[in-house]
């Protein structure tokens, strides 16, 4: 660690090329280019162990993006307000979770998303209902961004029967068939093949079932997962079969207490994309507009059938790994630096400076969200706990074991069975 400290004072690298006035190059936004800044990082002999050497380590202000008049802004007013509302919802909801946890209403493992909201809002707000999102245990905000009602998520966290999974999943297992949130997985890396499978389904529907399907899938996971075997297996297969998936790495530098730089031979995760034949992009994950621009391109690629993309979002979690994590290993200076780049503050500033919204409108949104979250808590509080009979329900979709139908007879005896119209 002493080594890392000594390079704190090195001149920080200039920010990675952002969306400012950039034409989409054939090599795709921000991906490898001969003159890219990557070379300066890796060739530097002290780079690898320094957290100060992150490519967008400078407090890159979103306002840098605004060099042109209003006509060239990255979002319209409606979009801006929608994104802002989503950012606030994510933050307020997670803060409420922390409160509820310490009051004993929530229990077990709870992993909060504070600080990373730009990634969720930046990506998920561009999706349609039919698109799928697969996440890890840090999934509350992904579910909220995708459209799962705050009430349903809060009830699920309280373990009540009105939760999105009727209290059976919990914090780490958010599923919603309606909103195509496919989990919520506790094992890191587990969601990546599942997401690849969901993308496989889109392609299968198009090619085999001849349906019109351009649904894409987003797989969210962290920097620790980028060292896991399943990740590489899926990068390979997704590129091989050109699946409509975007692998979104939320690189918050820490896997519980394991620094990304201590765990990874080459810490630049985006580079792993080209190694498997897909574009790899690095983006400032504290800036929702930058994320959104990259997301637009990646999602567009996937929808057009051009295959997967690996997007590394440099982001940070303001809280510990989970509510049980004392968070002692992280440097307070690092935390302060990232707190100064709070995505919500940045975006608020952007909206106001570009006259997309007034203070009053934003305050109104914040107030509305406060009410939504408080209502969610009240709803969850008042909801009943699952009944005892719920323990044995839903182990199987077909509990009596295929052979026997609800009328007590063997299903295969049903005359409609061969026509495929029998109730299975």
């Amino acid at each position, binding site marked *: 660690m002493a080594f890392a400290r000594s390079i704190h004072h090195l001149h920080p690298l200039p920010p990675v090329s952002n969306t400012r006035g950039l034409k989409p190059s054939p090599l795709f936004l921000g991906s490898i280019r001969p003159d890219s800044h990557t070379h300066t990082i890796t060739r530097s002999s002290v780079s690898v162990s320094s957290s100060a050497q992150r490519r967008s380590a400078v407090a890159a202000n979103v306002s840098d993006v605004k060099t042109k008049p209003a006509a060239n802004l990255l979002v319209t007013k409606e979009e801006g307000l929608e994104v802002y509302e989503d950012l606030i919802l994510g933050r307020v909801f997670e803060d409420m979770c922390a409160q509820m946890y310490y009051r004993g209403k929530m229990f077990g493992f709870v992993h909060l998303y504070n600080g990373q909201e730009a990634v969720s809002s930046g990506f998920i707000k561009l999706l349609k209902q039919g698109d799928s999102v697969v996440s890890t245990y840090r999934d509350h905000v992904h579910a909220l961004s995708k459209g799962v009602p705050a009430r349903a998520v809060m009830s699920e966290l309280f373990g009540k029967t009105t939760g999105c999974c009727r*209290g059976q999943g919990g914090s780490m297992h958010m599923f919603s068939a309606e909103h195509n949130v496919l*989990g919520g997985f506790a094992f890191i890396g587990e969601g990546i093949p599942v997401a690849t*499978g969901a993308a496989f389904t889109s392609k299968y529907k198009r090619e085999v079932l001849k349906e019109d399907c351009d649904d894409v899938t987003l797989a969210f996971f962290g920097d620790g997962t980028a060292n896991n075997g399943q990740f590489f297996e899926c990068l390979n297969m997704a590129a*091989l079969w050109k699946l409509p998936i975007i692998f979104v790495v939320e690189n918050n530098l820490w896997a519980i207490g394991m620094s990304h730089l201590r765990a990874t031979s080459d810490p630049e995760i985006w580079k792993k994309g080209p190694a498997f034949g897909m574009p790899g992009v690095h983006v400032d994950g504290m800036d929702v507009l930058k994320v959104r621009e990259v997301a637009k391109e990646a999602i567009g690629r996937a929808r057009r059938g051009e295959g997967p993309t690996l997007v590394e979002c440099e982001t940070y979690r303001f809280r510990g790994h989970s509510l049980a994590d004392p968070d002692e290993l992280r440097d307070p200076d690092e935390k302060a630096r990232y707190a100064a780049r709070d995505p919500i503050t940045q975006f608020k500033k952007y909206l106001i400076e570009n006259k997309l919204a007034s203070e009053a409108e934003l305050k109104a949104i914040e107030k509305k969200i406060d009410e939504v979250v408080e209502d969610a808590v009240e709803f969850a509080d008042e909801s009943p706990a699952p009944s005892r009979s719920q323990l044995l329900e839903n182990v199987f979709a*077909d509990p009596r074991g295929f052979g026997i139908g609800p009328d007590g007879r063997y299903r295969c*005896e049903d005359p409609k069975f061969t026509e495929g119209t029998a109730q299975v």
Partner: protein
Amino acid sequence: MFGIVRQNVGGARGLSSQGLNSMVRLRPIASVIRNYSSATKEMTVRDALNSALDEEMAADPNVYVMGEEVGEYQGAYKITKGLLDKYGPERVVDTPITEAGFAGIGVGSAYHGLRPVIEFMTFNFSMQAIDHVINSAAKSNYMSAGQINVPIVFRGPNGPAAGVGAQHSQCYGAWYGSVPGLKVLVPYSSEDARGLLKAAIRDPDPVVFLENELLYGESFPVSAEALDSSFCLPIGKAKIEREGKDITITAFSKMVGYALKAAEILEKDGINAEVINLRSIRPLDRATINASVRKTNRLVTVEEGFPQHGIGAEICASVVEDSFGYLDAPVERVAGADVPTPYAANLERMAFPQIEDIVRAAKRVCYRSVPLAATA
């Protein structure tokens, strides 16, 4: 035509009615003919599985096969022979060597309504993907409270073959059989293979389908009902392959054949054995097993897997819980030896149950002269 081969209906409905309803019970044709030469069509297990896959893929475009060597190589054990030509590479998908990856891909696609049949070249390799079989397949319907079911089949050869060594010879029945949310099937004959695989593919839940490499080439007679494309066997029902009154022998997969041969030997010594082909490890057909034990009062369980925490242990516990008063002798478990599988042929022979072991165990259970110290 509905080819459900119904057997032991009485036993399935409750212990009290077992043995009474001979009128209702339609004796399965296959087991009667089994011991006699006949003009009935014979089919290998391999062809049975292939035809089942073929028919299910033809009937439902959502069904697809994925695994290593399933396409151009025609299947590592030729189970998927001809399917690539018929259905194309989008439905018969050759994968890289990425069990965790493609098992997960199968699960993800099943979340969205496709019906994958994931082949593990052997179930030993499923250990690389067991996270997906259990955590994202078996548990998902429960965790999502019924929103997302997973109609996936994981199939492949299970258990020992011949001389393939310790890492290719393990039986996974007990491991998968202990997980709620999975259905675990273990076919023996061609009819079992066809009926159970079709049932598995049509089932809306994850099914682990444990085949046996040495059975692939074995021929069994198949009835006309079994050849029908709508033929399905119910999941969770065992089959009484041979009726008897002195002792019950439960077995699954290849051991059913051994148990039947052991029963013939025992017959000569005046012991009339009832052989139960489990067909399904999860759900386990406790009703049939207990009904049988209540009739015969003695039980020998046979399996190839490791003895501790094995299938026999579960069957023994079930019988002790439900039919303790009916037992005239302690339950005997015949299982594989408690060692990783050796390679040398003579050692391997000692590491797995042979027909003589079943015969000896049966005699012990009948208190007939053979001391416990007799080893395989």
